[in-house]
C-alpha cells in the first residue's frame, strides 16, 4: 500500500497565543497555485485587490498578472504553477484578531475600502503577508514558508505586549470552533 504523503507544517503554531487577548493561531495547509496571464485575462476572473471564497475555491488577486488560487479553476489562457508548499497559511482567531493585526500592518485594515475588500497584501512589521478575512475575528494570513516559524514567533511576542487594561483589546477568549457572531 503506497504511503500517504502529508505535508509537514512549517511552524509549531497550533494553539492560543500568550497574553490575555485569547487569540488562537493555527497553521493550515493551503494547496495554492499561481495563475499567470495578462491582466485583462485575469480581470475576467477576479478584479485586482479582491478575494473570492466559495466552498471549493479560493481566489486572491494582489498582482496585476497573477491570481493565487486554491481549488479547481481551469482556463486555457492562464499558466498554472504549483506554489502551495512555498506558502504558509495561518488562521488567527479571536474577537480582537483584526484589531490586533491592524496595530502592526502598514496598511490600515479598518480603512473603508479594505472593510469592503476584506483582503490585502501588506507588511506586518518586517513580514510581507497576504491577509483576508470573512469577519473581523477569523483572519487568514499567508507568508512565505521559510519565514513561517519566525512569523508565528513574532505574533506570539506581540501578543504578550497587550493586556486587559487596554481598552481597545478587551480579553474575550473565543473557543477555536465557536460560531461567528459578528463581522
Amino acid at each position, binding site marked *: 500500500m*503506497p*504511503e500517504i*504523503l*502529508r*505535508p*509537514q507544517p*512549517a511552524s509549531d503554531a497550533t494553539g492560543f497565543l500568550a*497574553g490575555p487577548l485569547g487569540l488562537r493561531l493555527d497553521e493550515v*495547509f493551503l494547496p495554492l497555485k*499561481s495563475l*499567470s*496571464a495578462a491582466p485583462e485575462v485575469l480581470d475576467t476572473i477576479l478584479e485586482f485587490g479582491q478575494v473570492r471564497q466559495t466552498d471549493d475555491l479560493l481566489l486572491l488577486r494582489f498582482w496585476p*498578472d*497573477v491570481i493565487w488560487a486554491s481549488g479547481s479553476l481551469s482556463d486555457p489562457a492562464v*499558466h498554472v*504553477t*504549483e*506554489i*502551495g*508548499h*512555498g*506558502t504558509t497559511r495561518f488562521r488567527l482567531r479571536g474577537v480582537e484578531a483584526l484589531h490586533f493585526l*491592524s*496595530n*502592526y*500592518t*502598514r496598511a*490600515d485594515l*479598518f*480603512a473603508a475600502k479594505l472593510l469592503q475588500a476584506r483582503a490585502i497584501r501588506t507588511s506586518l*512589521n*518586517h*513580514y510581507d503577508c497576504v491577509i483576508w478575512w470573512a469577519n473581523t475575528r477569523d483572519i487568514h494570513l499567508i507568508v*512565505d*514558508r*521559510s*519565514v*513561517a*516559524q*519566525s*512569523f508565528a*514567533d*513574532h505574533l506570539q*511576542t*506581540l501578543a*504578550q*505586549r*497587550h*493586556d486587559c*487594561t*487596554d481598552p*481597545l483589546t478587551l480579553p474575550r477568549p473565543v473557543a477555536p470552533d465557536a460560531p461567528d457572531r459578528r463581522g
Partner: protein
Amino acid sequence: MSRLSDGGMIDRETTLNFTFDGQPMVGHPGDTIASALLANGQHLVARSIKYHRPRGIMSAGLEEPSALVTVKDETGSTPNLKVTEVSLRDGLEVSSQNNWPSLTHDRGATLALGGKSLSSGFYYKTFKWPRKAWQTTYAPIIRKAAGHGEVDATPDTALYDKRRKACDVLVIGSGATGLSAAITAAQSGATTIVLEQDSILGGTLLSSDATIAEQTATHWAEDAADALVSLSNVTVMTSTLAFGQYDHGLVQAVEQQTAGSAARSILWKIRAQKIILAAGAIERPIVFPGNDRPGIMLAGALQTYVRRFAVVPGKRAVVAVAEPNARADTIRALEHAGVEIAACLNAGDQILSTQGRLRVSGLTWRNTQGHRQKVTCDLVAMSAGWMPTAHLFAQMGQPLEFDAYTQSLLPPQTDGPLRPVGGARGVLNLRDCIADGKIAAHQVLAELQMHKHLSLTPPASTARPPQGFGSGKGKAFVDFQNDVTRDDIALAQREGYTDIELTKRYTTLGMGTDQGKTSWTNGILEIAALTGEDPAKIGHTTYRPAYSPVSLGTLIGTEVGEQMLPTRRTPFHGGFEKLGCVYQTSGDWLYSRYFPKAGETMEQAITRECHAVRRGLGCVDMSTLGKIDVKGPDALEFLSRLYCNNFAKIKVGRLRYALMLREDGYVFDDGTIARLSDTHFMVTATTANAGSVWRHMRKSAQLDWPELDVVLTSVSDHWASLAIAGPHARNLLTALNPDFDVSRPGFPFASVRAGHLGGLPVRVFSVSFSGELSYEINVPAGFADTLLSRVIAGGEQWDITPYGLETLDVLRIEKGHLSIGTEVDGRRTPADLGLGGMVSHTKDFVGRALLQRKALQKDNRAQLVGLESKDGATPIPIAAHLSTTPLGNGGPMQTCGYLTAAIHSPTLDHPIALAFLEDGQNRTGEVLWAHSPIAGKSVQVRVTAPCAYDPKGERLNA
C-alpha cells in the same frame, strides 16, 4: 505636608509611598513626582549641570529644564527624567543627580566660585595642552564633575511595543483648543484620534478658574472628554506624547503605559490625513540675576500645583508676571492656597537679585520710580509671556517666524497636513482658543470633503504683554538646563559666534533634554538686545524630532534578539536539528553550518565531512538557492537575453551553468538553467542574489521586453532541495527507488529529471558544487522531512554524512568555484573569473555593450587564480595581499592582488587559496609573497590554476 485640605484632582483615599534620596515620602494617585515632592515640602531637587547650583522645580510640564532625577522601579532605573513628566507610582525610588556627597552639601558647588572663568568655551580654551591629557585626565574629571544621571547597565526587563494607527483627523493636545477641534471633527463623522501627553484630558483648563458656558473650566473639560470617549469614531490616547512629525501626515508618539501593563511604553506611528496641533504654549521665564533658585517658578506652573494638585507651594510669594490678567489669576491661585503675597511687581520694575542658598529667601528690585526694594519670600511666581509649542510644525523644515506683536516664534500660514491652532499659533485667550479649534476643524473637514466650506475668520494671535521686567547685573540664566547665562551669550557675540547655530554650539543654549523649550525665545531676545539686530532676522536653530526625550527601548520596540528581523528557515531545519546541526545566520537564513559529533571541534567536524563527501557520501541542504519557474513560448528567448552564455540548443531534460551580467558588464550572478519542456525552464540563482535576480527578471519581463510571452513564478520556497554528493551518490539515488533511469548514460551530468522517488514527487538535477558526483533532489517543501529521513536511512550503508555551509565552502574552494560576495564582488568580468569563454559572441544580452569597454577588456586586469604555499605546509593567511617583494619596513608597498579565500585543504592536505592577481592567468607558477600585516604573517605562495582538485572534472562523470 504642604497640601490643601481639599480640592485638586488627586485621589486622597489612596496613599502612594515613594522615596526621594532615600527619604520616605507620600503622595496620591493623580500626582506627578513634582507635585508629590512639593507637597512634601521638597523644593530642592537637583544640582545644575555646570555650576552645581541648587535647582528646584520651575514648571509643571515637559518644558522643565532643571528638575531631572533618576527613577527606579521594578524594571530598573532610568536617569534624566523630568519630575514633571512622571506620574507617581507606589514604590518609586527617586534620586537626585550630579551631586556629591549629597544634594544639600554638594562639593561640586565650589565650581560656582570660578565665576566668569567657567564661561562658554572654557573647555576649548583651557584644556588644550598636553594633547594626550584630554583623554587620560581632563575628560574623566570633567565628566565626573558635570553631567546628569547614570545609565542603568543591567538588562532592561520591561517590554516595549510599536504599533500603527490611521485616522482622518489627528488632534494633538486636549486643552480648550484641542477639545473643541476634536469634538467638531468627530461630530462630522471623521475618524479622530486625540493625543494628550498628560494622564487626563484638559490641558491648562485643569488649572484654570475660568468659566465656560457657566461651567468651571475643569467641568467643561470633563464634559468634553466624556463626549469624545463616547463617540465610536474617536480614539482618545492619554499619556501619549507626539514627538515627531514626518512626511505625508505621519506622526510618531510614545504612549506611557500604566503600572502593571504588559508593555512599559508603546511607540505609535499614526498616519493622519490632517493634523491639528493644539499643543498650547509654554510660559517664558524672566531673565534676571539669581533667577534659578529653588522656589522661583513659572506662574502658570504654580496655578497648576495649587489648583490641580492641591499643593501649597510656599508661604510668602513675590509675583512677577508681565501680563495683567495672568498676574491677577496667579494672585488668586496663591491666595486660594493661603500663600501671602509679599510683593507684586509691576511691569517695568527692575529685578536686581534674589537671596537664599538652597531655596529662595528674598528678592530685591528697583521699582519704576527708582526705589530699591527688598522682601523676604520663599516663592517667586514669574512670567514674561508665552511661547507657542509649534515644534512639530517646525520639524518639517519650515522655520518659525519671530513676531513682534506677540514677541514669540510663530508658525507661518501653511496648507500642509499639520495646522497649528490656539496657543500653538499664539492665540492665548480662552474663548478665542475654543473658536480657533472649531474653525480649524471645520477647515480640515472641508479639505477632506467631509464638510462644506465655511467662511470663518480665525481669531488673531494675542498681543505680547505691554511691558516686561528689567534686570540688574549678575548671573542671569537664560538656559537653566545648561547653565547658560546672559553673559555667556554676550561672550559668544563678542567672540564672533553670532550666527544662531554657532551661538547654540558655543554656549550650549537650547541643547539638552529640554531642547530649549524655556530658553529659545529668551535667547533670541537677549541676542537682539545685545546686538541691536531684529529678532526676526536672528531666526532659530533646526527643530528635529524628538520633541522630548524618548527612551531607546521605546524606539526599538520588539526588535531585539530573535525579533530583530525575520529569520528564514529551510524545510530541512527541523530534520537537521535532530541530526545535531549547528546553525549560523547567513543573510536572513538560518543555515546549517556543521554537524559535530561528540567531542569534535568545528575544524575536526569539517575535515570529517569533507572526507565523507570526497570518499563516500554526504548530503547538504541547498534549499536557500533562488528558484524561478519560467514558462511561455518566449521563455528561451527571454533567458537568452538575460544570460550571457549560449544555450539556444539546450535540450529538454538538460541544464546549463549560466552567467548573468549587470548592464554595466560586470558579473551579477550565476546559476543553472534547466529545460523541463520546450516552453518551461527552471532557473536557479545564488542564495545571496535570490531576491535581486527575481526582481531583475520581473523588471525585464514587464518593462524591457513586454513583447515576450513569458511567465515568471518564484518557487524558491516551494521546492526544498537536498544535494547528495560523493562517489556513492548514484547508488543512493538508485536505492531511493526512482521511477526514471538514473544510470550514467540515462542520467548524465548536467541533466534534470522529473518523476518520483518511492512515490515522492521530485525533480532531480545532476549538478555539483562540490566537484563530486552529485544530485540535487528537489521536493515540495512539505515533504522535505520525508525525503531527508529516506536519504539518511537509505544512505546509512554508505555512512552518509550531513554537511553544512563550512564544508560546502571548503569543497568549492578546492574546486575553484565562485562565491557571491567574495569572488563575485561586483567588479569582475567573466574573463576576470576565468569564464570569458562562456560569453556568447553571436547574440545580444544584458551587459554585452558595456562589457566591450576598453577598461574591461584590458589584459592585465586582476584575474582569479589559485595559490598554494611554496613549501606546501605553511598556512596562507586569510585576506592577505599579494606582492612580488617581501614585507619591508619602509611603509606602504606595491601590491599586485589579494586573497578572497584561504583554507587548509583536507583533501589535498596542504594550504590553498583563491586570489585576484593582476594578469594572473599568465603568471601560473610564479612565486609571490602573501602579506597579512593584521595577522603579522608573510608567506611565499605559488600561483596555480583556481581549480586545485580534479581539474578535468572526471569525478563528476564517475
